[in-house]
């Protein structure tokens, strides 16, 4: 059982240029083949704990970061009093939400009302499981990773629709309907951008998409196609995350609380958590597809520079790159006004979708004639 040297090995590997990916699921199955029962169970538990831990930590950190960043964007300080610079703020919020009274409206569809937040969080957890955080830090590496991500994130919209429907509140329903229309529309152009990257890298497996970028990230080496796909993907994921400028489903000034108007306490916390962790998932996908995942930043010919970059462990690279995109999303949120529903729809159907189709055609040409670097 090599659980103990699991983390050190990943750090040491960082210096190499060739990457070997080993997922937790692979370790478990190899332990199972070796008839090592305790190892199998240990790895399975590790995978579960890792996902749950990641969820909690991300929730705490991202909510704190958002409040702190919002504060500084607005010439304020943000949370200051709970712990050092308010570092325990999210913990206090979480504990409080946990202990709040749980209200289910009398005329609500009780079962669906209770189920929606769980479904929402579940969709998030399922995507967390396949994100390649570093060569050795990935729970499962599905060979249809991209399709899996698209499928599972669509569960989130189902949760929102159920939440809006079951609350028996017109504002919730209006928010849910907006969310449904918006997320399903933007799913199209997001998927088209994903397909471009699948074409270029020739694989649906997330780890292989990263491997294909070992000689350069797709954002550099795919001419304009990758850049267009990146911009489209960034816009559509922001829309799928329901964040400003696309926060219509929960736009406070229009719909009071949108689909989660009637949710309180822990169930509201589930939606809240799912929203923030989804932000990480989106950033992680952007990093994986366009910015080389956990690959370090190399510049051809600068060997000294590259070796210094190579010293930084891949996990840190991944976290750093994701953090940048999370920051970008937060920056959007505190700067832009919100679009109107018909403008939102025309942006997708009249601009992003045609651009996406043309882009995928160009990408096919590039791959066919091997024009990319």
């Amino acid at each position: 059982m090599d659980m103990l040297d699991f983390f050190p090995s990943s750090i040491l590997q960082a210096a190499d240029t060739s990457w070997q990916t080993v997922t937790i699921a692979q370790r478990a199955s190899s332990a199972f083949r070796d008839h090592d029962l305790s190892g199998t169970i240990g790895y399975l538990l590790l995978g579960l704990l890792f996902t749950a831990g990641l969820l909690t930590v991300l929730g705490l950190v991202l909510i704190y970061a958002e409040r702190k960043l919002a504060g500084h964007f607005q010439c304020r300080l943000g949370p200051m009093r709970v712990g050092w610079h308010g570092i325990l703020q999210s913990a206090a919020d979480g504990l409080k939400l946990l202990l709040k009274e749980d209200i289910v409206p009398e005329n609500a569809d009780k079962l669906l009302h209770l189920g929606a937040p769980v479904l929402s969080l579940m969709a998030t957890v399922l995507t967390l499981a396949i994100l390649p955080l570093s060569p050795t830090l990935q729970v499962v590496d599905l060979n249809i990773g991209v399709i899996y991500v698209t499928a599972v994130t669509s569960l989130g919209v189902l949760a929102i629709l159920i939440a809006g429907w079951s609350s028996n509140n017109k504002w919730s329903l209006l928010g849910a309907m907006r969310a449904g229309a918006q997320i399903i529309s933007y799913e199209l152009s997001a998927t088209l951008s994903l397909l471009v990257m699948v074409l270029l890298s020739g694989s649906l497996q997330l780890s292989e998409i990263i491997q294909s970028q070992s000689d350069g990230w797709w954002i550099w080496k795919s001419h304009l196609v990758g850049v267009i796909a990146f911009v489209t993907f960034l816009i559509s994921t922001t829309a799928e995350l329901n964040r400003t400028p696309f926060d219509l489903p929960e736009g406070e000034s229009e719909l009071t609380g949108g689909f989660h108007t009637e949710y309180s306490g822990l169930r509201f916390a589930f939606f809240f958590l799912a929203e923030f962790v989804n932000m990480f998932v989106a950033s992680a996908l952007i990093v994986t597809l366009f910015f080389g995942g956990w690959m370090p930043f190399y510049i051809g010919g600068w060997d000294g520079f590259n070796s210094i970059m190579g010293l930084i462990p891949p996990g840190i690279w991944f976290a750093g790159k994701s953090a940048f995109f999370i920051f970008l999303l937060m920056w959007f949120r505190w700067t832009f006004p919100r679009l109107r529903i018909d403008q939102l729809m025309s942006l997708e159907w009249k601009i992003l979708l045609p651009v996406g189709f043309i882009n995928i055609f160009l990408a096919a040409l590039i791959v066919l004639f091997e024009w990319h670097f």
Partner: protein
Amino acid sequence: MGLITEKLPKMMAGMPGSDIIFTRMDAVINWARANSLWPLTFGTSCCAIEMMMAPGASRHDLARFGAEVARPSPRQADMLILAGTIVKRMAPRLRTLYEQMPEPRYVIATGACTISGGPFIYHSYSTVRGADTIIPVDVYVPGCPPRPEGLLYGLLTLQKMIRSGETVREPGIRHKPVTSETPEGITIEDIKSEMLALLEKDAVVDVRKAAEQMERPTGI
């Protein structure tokens, strides 16, 4: 959730050492509740501007105490800051809003109108004289409207109250009103003279004389 705060203490009442466990648990729970007071976006009139000033303006910044997450839906709010006059027509709606908030919920009444009816007590056929005739109020912040600092002090008072007063075993303490007391050895006269001294520093008129001569306004 009722399980941890209500059922568990009853189940474990007879067990040895439960006192210690629950005292520690109380402290943690109250710490969380006191430091995460999310207000409801509710304001009826003038005080609402000063209330927005408190969480809003960068100078006062309610966010420092973790209380800037203003929720538009009462289901997610912990604290109702009553800002502005309550009239007869609004009273049932206010009651509904309060009832829609999940327990534990706290109410801060800011401004003269929500405390007593303020300038609209007499000859008014519609103003409710004090919001505490409709819903229980925890902290009163006087002023017309109170300064943002006043609201911050009200919030800190509420936090202090939550940290000390409410326990898992004794809910219901919190609806006793809390008032600020003058510290020991200091009288109202001392405060008055100190404030006058501050004013005197850069005053253009004789403050002390003016204070003596000042008559109480006539009429209502």
